[in-house]
């Protein structure tokens, strides 16, 4: 019988999906594995995306009798009340992400803490007059600026609500993963084995990697990652405006060194995300508060990068458009001016892009930054992660209701296809935009000027964005 089994295993490896069903050289002995507790799903990484994934599954009706675990390397943070000052790490939450968060009760918590809806988004170029304005026809909210801490507080609350189904392991870092053989013999366990830093072991039918752009799950699963470090860092800070205003517009200006964005937090405060070269970022952090504020105002208001040629060409194009499509041009508004920066709120972090060639393998799935990392210029990062969650949870819920083995590639591949189809074009577009706007060379400026003006005039394209 062992010969037949070996032959069966061999044939399994030659099957079409063989590349995804990696044979682990260290498939664990059954006797060793038997002692470790078995979970239906383990989510590795307790950030916004990992915590939301665990919470969504924990609140899913078809997961009522399932066991879920969430592994987080850091300690449990208590978010009893928000400090008066705003945190410098914020995210732009799309309406779709808000819908996901409200599906398991987290959005209510966010609303009761604090958030800022915005209705308009103005994006313009430092080298020309071109700009594009996004806003919804029905004056609905386009999106929300929420502090990451607020989201985490809401997620933690909702995880506590399903503590009987979701076990959260704080201060737990996974140090090793053992992958099962696709067609296992009676000596080896069919589950994924996880070893924690304190020596504890877990087994799971499905491992979800939500451990960020340096994902250990992805590396251990030997999934190739296409990655590129940008020569840019992002500087974040919490700013106070010169005067109170409606502040329901998100502003972004493309400078030759990188985009600078002002995201509303309240009528008097906004969050800064300024992507620029590493050197300039360090300078910005080092300079005194007054100079810092001056740099920001000048970045938004100064026209020093304009050239007459570009201005004329842009103006010509704009008049051409207004002949063809009178409503296609809009008046450019000026962003509010900044008066102060919150002390201690300045920070910087390096930027890069990344995309995993595969999102899934037998009993493994990647979501969030572990699967894809983008430049913040489009405010999409965490929204892509929430989109991954909505899709994966949908497929896992259906699989559970059909009595399927949760780690089966069949439905995991459906998740991968759906998300890659959605993500790849968006990630590529963001990368192209980043490169296109990183120059002040006239031809490229002209190209993007006209492109931006044209896009502003064409409703179908704008709606898609």
């Amino acid at each position, binding site marked *: *019988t062992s010969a*037949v*089994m070996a032959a*069966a295993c061999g*044939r*399994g490896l030659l*099957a*079409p*999906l063989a590349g995804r069903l990696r044979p682990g050289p260290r498939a664990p002995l*059954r006797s060793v594995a038997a002692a470790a507790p*078995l979970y239906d799903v383990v989510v590795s990484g307790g950030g916004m995306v990992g915590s939301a994934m665990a919470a969504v599954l924990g609140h899913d*009706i*078809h*997961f*009522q*009798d399932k066991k879920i675990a969430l592994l987080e390397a850091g300690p449990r943070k208590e978010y009893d009340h928000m400090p008066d000052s705003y945190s410098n790490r914020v995210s732009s939450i799309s309406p779709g992400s808000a819908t996901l968060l409200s599906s398991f009760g987290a959005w209510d918590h966010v609303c009761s803490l604090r958030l800022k809806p915005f209705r308009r988004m103005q994006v313009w170029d430092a080298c020309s007059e071109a700009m594009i304005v996004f806003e919804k026809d029905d004056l609905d909210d386009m999106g929300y600026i929420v502090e990451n801490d607020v989201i985490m507080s809401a997620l933690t609350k909702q995880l506590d609500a399903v503590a009987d189904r979701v076990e959260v392991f704080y201060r737990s870092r996974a140090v090793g993963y053992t992958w099962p053989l696709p*067609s296992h013999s*009676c000596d080896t*366990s*069919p*589950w994924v084995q996880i070893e924690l830093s304190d020596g504890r072991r877990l087994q799971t039918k499905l491992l979800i990697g939500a451990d960020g752009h340096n994902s250990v799950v992805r590396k251990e699963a030997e999934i190739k990652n296409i990655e590129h470090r940008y020569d840019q860092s992002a500087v974040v800070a919490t700013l106070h405006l010169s005067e109170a205003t409606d502040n329901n517009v998100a502003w972004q200006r493309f400078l030759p060194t990188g985009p600078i964005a002002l995201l509303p937090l309240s009528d008097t405060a906004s969050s800064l995300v300024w992507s620029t070269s590493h050197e300039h970022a360090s300078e910005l952090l080092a300079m005194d508060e007054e100079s810092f504020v001056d740099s920001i105002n000048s970045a938004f208001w100064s026209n020093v990068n304009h050239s007459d040629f570009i201005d004329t060409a842009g103006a010509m194009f704009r008049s051409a458009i207004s002949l063809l499509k009178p409503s296609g041009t809009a008046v450019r508004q000026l962003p509010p001016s900044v008066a102060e920066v919150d002390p201690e709120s300045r920070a910087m972090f390096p930027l890069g892009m990344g995309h995993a060639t595969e999102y899934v393998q037998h009993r493994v799935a990647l979501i969030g930054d572990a699967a894809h990392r983008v430049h913040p210029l489009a405010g999409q990062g965490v929204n892509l992660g929430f989109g991954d969650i909505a899709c994966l949870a949908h497929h896992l819920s259906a699989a*559970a*209701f*059909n*009595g*399927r*083995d949760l780690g*089966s*590639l*069949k439905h995991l591949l459906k998740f991968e296809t759906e998300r890659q189809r959605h993500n790849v074009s968006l990630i590529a577009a963001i990368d192209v935009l980043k490169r296109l706007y990183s120059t002040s060379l006239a031809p490229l400026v002209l190209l993007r000027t006209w492109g931006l003006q044209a896009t502003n005039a064409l409703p179908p394209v704008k709606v898609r964005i």
Partner: protein
Amino acid sequence: QLSLFRLTMKRLFSASHSSVDSKEMKKFQLLAHKWWDEEGEYSALHSMNDIRVPFIRDTLLNMSSNYHLGNPLSGVKILDVGCGGGLLSEPLGRLGALVTGIDPLEDNIRTAEQHKSFDPVLDKRIQYKSSSLEEIVEECMETFDVIVASEVVEHVADLEMFIKCCSQVLKPEGSLFITTINKTQLSYVLGIVVAEKIIGIVPEGTHEWEKFVPPEELERLLESNGFSVKTVNGMLYNPLSRSWSWMESTSINYAMHAVKSGAQGQSSPTDALSEMESEQPLATAGTTM
């Protein structure tokens, strides 16, 4: 001890009256280890779960008024006849049912036992037994809420006895689910020539056209043995997408749901009506072939 002796003697002497066909058993012996390779010889059966599990689940949910969406088949006792490696028993177990899987081939049972042993929840909910249906009748009279005989009746030697045994181990008003292959020219061409010989999605020699069962005959046998047939649905396999779907026509594969009549063999008015209906197709059965 005495009952074991009796059982063994019964087995030896009633071989000719058993529903198990020894030639069929030999065919499956060779493939006993291939059950759980989702891309292997049994891949079509694996994908059949995508329609037969929802069919069973939804039919049972519709008939019952109190259920838990999180554990839809909780407490339901199911007999999986001809369970093979447990491909259907496991999903039913995951949905909360208490499953007894029987198969005459010991190697199949061994494979099934070994596969479920790694999951403590399934290990508790599913019991496997190497046995034929007749052998468990005595100890299991009116024990099960549901019997599932999927891709089995085209392999049994005596179909009427098989159905009679099903009736004996099923509780009154219990459900019987059967999936099998029709006996038509189309099923010969697609089910044997194409499936076995040309594209090889079914191991060669698995099926014999002579033993295929037309739905009219199955319905007749069921109705005359205390069952009321509730649903008949055609099924279609797409080898390109490797997936099953429902279809109007039952000319190739089909699924049937029947309910055992209530206590004292009372038949409802609808039973009498369906008996009349099922007699009609017999007259035309000869012409379809």
